[in-house]
């Protein structure tokens, strides 16, 4: 597998000397990862000041650690995790790393400031305890994602929990099993097997997609997407992308730096959208591209797409090179621009964004 990386390297989280990477480059998360490690290396998460990397079964931090940049170190696991070989899900932000026992027995919150570990239990509300115990027994956590304020956990059976101390999120009204959850800075998105999209949390920057600025406590279906089967969702800081089964992309939320990639020709300012809008792509001659989008990802204030011809398109804030373009020449873009093409069309390429990074995963198809 190869990683093509662009964007912030402020904490030297990538194996590269430049603090700002403004073009896609084949980079390793650390100089300590030699070429023959790469097939065993997996980039799990990109944060602002560090990345979480897995080599075989071992978790590493690359970037800022313990007040120093350019570090590459093992995630300090609680001893009980090591001795009993607990299978873990990991997620972090700049203040905490959360380690969750996939079997839902416990989780550990590592405070990066104090270097303390706190063990927490999977919280169960009394009223539904019996019911929940049954649910827990044959279930396992498949994903944990920590935003600036809270954490979301998704289980293999499609149950959602939220909070550093997890509490059950009622999704019984959602049509289909929940297959993905995403966190914005202050809002949440979930996707079901049926292709339906639900949002909740803070809506003041139009990020919920229901046409207003109200906040919602309960996951609520994005009506504008009803009838369109969505295969993938991605939440940025205050915006979102959704990819349909037909390879179309819908965007909504804050557009202050052009992160929706929906340009209004007759408007000076980028208009934010309170409901999902179809994204169109144009080539240099202004002719609309009809190819299908196969992957999407959002950073804090930017967005990236890959089409089925392995071209990569980006829009939004480029102050730290996150679009894969010169930050001097393009401080931001309010339309999608083709910035890269994976040279080999038979590769399987996918996307992952950090707050200020865009990364392409390229796997050779067997």
């Amino acid at each position, binding site marked *: 597998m190869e990683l093509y990386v662009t964007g*912030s390297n*402020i*904490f030297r989280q990538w194996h590269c000397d430049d*603090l*700002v990477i403004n073009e896609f480059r084949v980079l390793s998360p650390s100089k300590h990862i030699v070429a023959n490690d790469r097939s065993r290396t997996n980039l799990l998460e990109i944060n*602002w*000041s*560090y990345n979480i990397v897995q080599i075989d079964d071992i978790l590493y931090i690359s*970037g*800022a650690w*313990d*007040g*120093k*940049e350019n570090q590459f170190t093992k995630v300090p696991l609680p001893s009980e995790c090591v001795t009993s070989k607990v299978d873990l899900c990991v997620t972090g932000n*700049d*203040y905490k790393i959360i380690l969750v026992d996939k079997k839902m027995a416990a989780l550990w919150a590592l405070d*990066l*400031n104090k270097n303390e570990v706190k063990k927490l239990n999977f919280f169960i509300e009394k009223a539904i305890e019996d019911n929940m115990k049954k649910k827990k027994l044959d279930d396992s956590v498949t994903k944990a994602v920590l935003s*600036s*304020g809270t954490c979301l956990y998704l289980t293999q059976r499609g149950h959602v929990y939220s909070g550093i101390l997890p509490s059950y999120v009622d999704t019984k009204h959602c049509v289909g099993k929940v297959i993905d959850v995403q966190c914005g*800075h*202050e809002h949440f998105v979930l996707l079901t097997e049926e292709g339906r999209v639900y949002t909740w949390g*803070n809506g*003041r920057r139009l990020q919920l997609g229901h046409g207003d*600025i*109200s906040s919602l406590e309960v996951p609520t279906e994005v009506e504008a997407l009803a009838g369109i089967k969505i295969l993938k969702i991605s939440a940025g*800081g*205050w915006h979102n992308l959704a990819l349909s089964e037909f390879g179309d992309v819908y965007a909504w939320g804050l557009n202050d730096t052009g992160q929706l990639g929906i340009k209004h020709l007759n408007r000076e*300012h980028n208009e934010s959208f309170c409901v999902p809008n179809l994204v169109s792509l144009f080539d240099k001659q202004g002719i609309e591209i009809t190819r299908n989008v196969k992957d999407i990802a959002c950073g*804090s*204030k930017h967005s990236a797409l890959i089409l089925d011809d392995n071209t990569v398109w980006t829009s939004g804030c480029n*102050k*730290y090179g996150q679009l894969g373009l010169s930050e001097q020449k393009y401080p931001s873009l309010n339309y999608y621009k083709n910035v890269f093409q994976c040279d080999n069309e038979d590769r399987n390429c996918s996307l992952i964004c950090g*707050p200020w990074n865009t990364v392409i995963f390229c796997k050779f198809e067997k």
Partner: protein
Amino acid sequence: MLALREICYKLEEYKTCVATALPEIEDLDPASKSLLQRYINSTESTDPSSTIRIQAILDYMYEKINIGNWKEVKLFIRKAITIATYLKLLAHVRFSDEDTDTIIKQAYKIIDFGILFGCPLDKEPRLLQNCASILNTVNVQKNLVLKDTSTKEKNKASSDTSQADKFNAIQIESIDCPSMEHFYKYYILAEKPVILDNCINHWPALEKWKDQNYFINLAGPRTVSIEIGSKYTDTDWTQRLITIEEFVKQYIYQTEGPTGYLAQYQLFDQIPELKSDITEPEYCCFSDSNEPVDVMAWYGPKGTVSPLHHDPKKNLLTQVVGEKQLFLFAPSDSEFLYPHEHELLNNTAQVDPRQPDLDKYPKYRSSKPYYCRLKPGQMLYIPPKWWHFVESLSISFSVSFWWE
């Protein structure tokens, strides 16, 4: 260039003091915190890589302060902005290769970003304001407005009473510089609005602020946050950062396009030089708390509108330049005024008292409007929770004093 070097030294004198304030950002994320600590404690000057990193911290903290309610933003994040701003300022003044004029103007922009989005350090609460004062010793080129900028006072033939009658409103009574006891007993305790005449005759602002070039001269390159759009309830209402010089030229003297309004703005905290033109009225000493009085500037062209709303504190609205018309309603009139239902706007009502739509808002008929035209030198006491609608009738500068 000698002047710039001196400024550098003077700015750097605060470094040891800022270092003692570092425990105030103890709870900040370790990555940013250790960078700020290292740069503040370093005796060496910053290099280009530190400039990028300081800017990255500022940009990242700016994202953080936009999450959730502004009032709930953690203070250590805003203090980190203050410290990073100070570091950015030092590097800028020392290393920028622009001409002095450009360097100083950009330096004000750096400082004002820190004042607007950061917050005071306990150890040195006036750090950024003091840095601005150091820069003030350099004279920068200002482009004054060419036309005669003094506002003219027109004596309108129509009397206030006839205006009040036109709107079926009660003319708010005015009294001449009352004694403290009288004001307290009959207006504060009684929660009754009143116009106070001849209380601020000694303010230098009354003369100085008539000339709009005065603001350009004193603070032209300073950045302020203004509101654009005629009123904050409109959909195309927005906010913008702009220098005072640009604001005066583009908005105070414009007659077309959207209205720009420097509204509810802590101008006197940011630019202390302006504070010496006014004084805090003694009436504000009748207070139930030890909180300092909030002094806000309201500066704009003719036609700025604050829709009908109420505030939780006592308010002395002081008219310095130009005229404003106001409609006031007692808190008990709320149901006749149709407050917005959304949580963010529920202190704002939908009725426009100038042209009430009685088909839409029939209960307005039962309300009891109070009216006045506030003239330069007058102060209006607005009791807490009283609804008020404010419109400027000319270029206008008012100062409000809010206290509890």
